[in-house]
């Protein structure tokens, strides 16, 4: 018998029969897991199983390769906190959709910690948006395609890094990038220093950067393309503007 109990972020819920649901969740110790939740499509549990909510999940199965069943103890209802905020609701959906690319049953504790920080910051949109870009960078790193933003790919300098090469994913200094600047991604300063706050279109530049590498290095493998929820999130940010 396989069994564990852990804190989990709900990523997705699909109705299974009349009252049950198959729920996809992300845990610190066990990674992304699915399980049949009896009563998961019923009135009592449905609110707790909204994407983005934190719950206590107890999973068990006779054999580890089985889908397994999970019982859910409701935790913090992050989804309810952002239902009326279009930008954050779209961002939360995008976060859950992106996490569904993670391989099942492999632990990514650092990524889980990043997700928790992101969820905790939901009350502050100005903080949340740059954190979302950092979350995407962390996701790239966890799946083995991290960007190298520490030094210039051309000159090796660690100063005045302003762009990122779309091919190598490495930072490029202002001087070295000058002849090719139009073909390179802008590297927002807030990605280089935790103290720097995003200005102007920095968040959108950051999302363009991470979106390119997520699509090229992660999502192109299964030809599905970036999740539609992420596309919608970026579209909303472009239309409504990003608070600086």
């Amino acid at each position, binding site marked *: 018998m396989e069994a564990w109990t852990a804190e989990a972020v709900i990523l997705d819920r699909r109705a299974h029969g*009349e009252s049950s649901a198959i729920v996809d969740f992300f845990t610190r110790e066990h990674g992304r897991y699915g399980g049949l939740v009896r009563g998961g499509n019923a009135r009592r549990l449905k609110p707790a199983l909204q994407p983005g909510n934190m719950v206590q999940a107890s999973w068990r199965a006779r054999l580890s390769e089985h889908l397994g069943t999970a019982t859910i103890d409701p935790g913090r209802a992050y*989804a*309810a906190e952002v239902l*009326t905020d279009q930008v954050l609701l779209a961002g*939360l*959906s995008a976060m859950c959709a992106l996490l569904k690319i993670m391989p099942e049953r492999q632990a990514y504790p650092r990524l889980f910690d990043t997700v928790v920080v992101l969820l905790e910051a939901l009350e502050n949109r100005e903080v949340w948006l740059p954190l979302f870009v950092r979350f995407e960078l962390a996701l790239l790193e966890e799946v083995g395609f991290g960007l190298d933003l520490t030094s210039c790919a051309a000159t090796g300098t660690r100063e005045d890094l302003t762009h990122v090469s779309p091919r190598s994913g490495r930072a490029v200094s202002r001087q070295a990038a000058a002849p090719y600047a139009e073909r390179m991604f802008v590297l927002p300063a807030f990605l280089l220093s935790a103290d720097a706050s995003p200005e102007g279109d920095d968040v959108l530049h950051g999302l363009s950067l991470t979106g390119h590498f997520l699509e090229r290095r992660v999502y192109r493998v299964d030809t599905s393309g970036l999740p539609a929820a992420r596309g919608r999130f970026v579209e909303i940010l472009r239309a409504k503007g990003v608070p600086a």
Partner: protein
Amino acid sequence: MAGDEIEELVKYLARLPGLGPRSARRAVLTLMRRREALLDPLTAALTAARDSIKTCHICGNIDTQDPCAICADPRRDGSVICVVEDVGDLWALERAKALKGRYHVLGGTLSALDGIGPEELNLAGLHARCKAEGVREVILATNATVEGQTTAHYISDMLAPLSLTITRLAHGVPVGGELDYLDDGTLIAAMRSRRET
């Protein structure tokens, strides 16, 4: 255990919501025993419903006439349209007599995970109605779920250029609800939607 026809009937009844194989078998037994009082009228009612059910081309409601009884009723306030996800939601609001206006059934919600985009929903019809019918207010009565509210925000953006009043249902404490028994999400939503008395 029983003839093929009876097993077939059990099989189909068991597919209905609220019925499993055991309860379907009990229902079939009752129908067999009360053939004249139940089975014959039920057969006639099912056949009549099958032949007359139509989807309203204006709002997407299901009725035996097109336009549906609500769209055809001149006493209804045509300047208010209430947008719901499914016909079941429309019936719930009608049961409560909560609205004197008209409805628009989307046929679902936007769901990136299930691949349901704006094209799959009855949104073009809503836009056309709001432009053409002298609509003043659109009430977004989608469910208080991530997908329901994402759809509501999308519709809000879509209708913004038409300068209508766009409202949404309140989220919060149900009538007769006790705070102690409410889930955290409802309490948070209720607290955020509080208003001055």
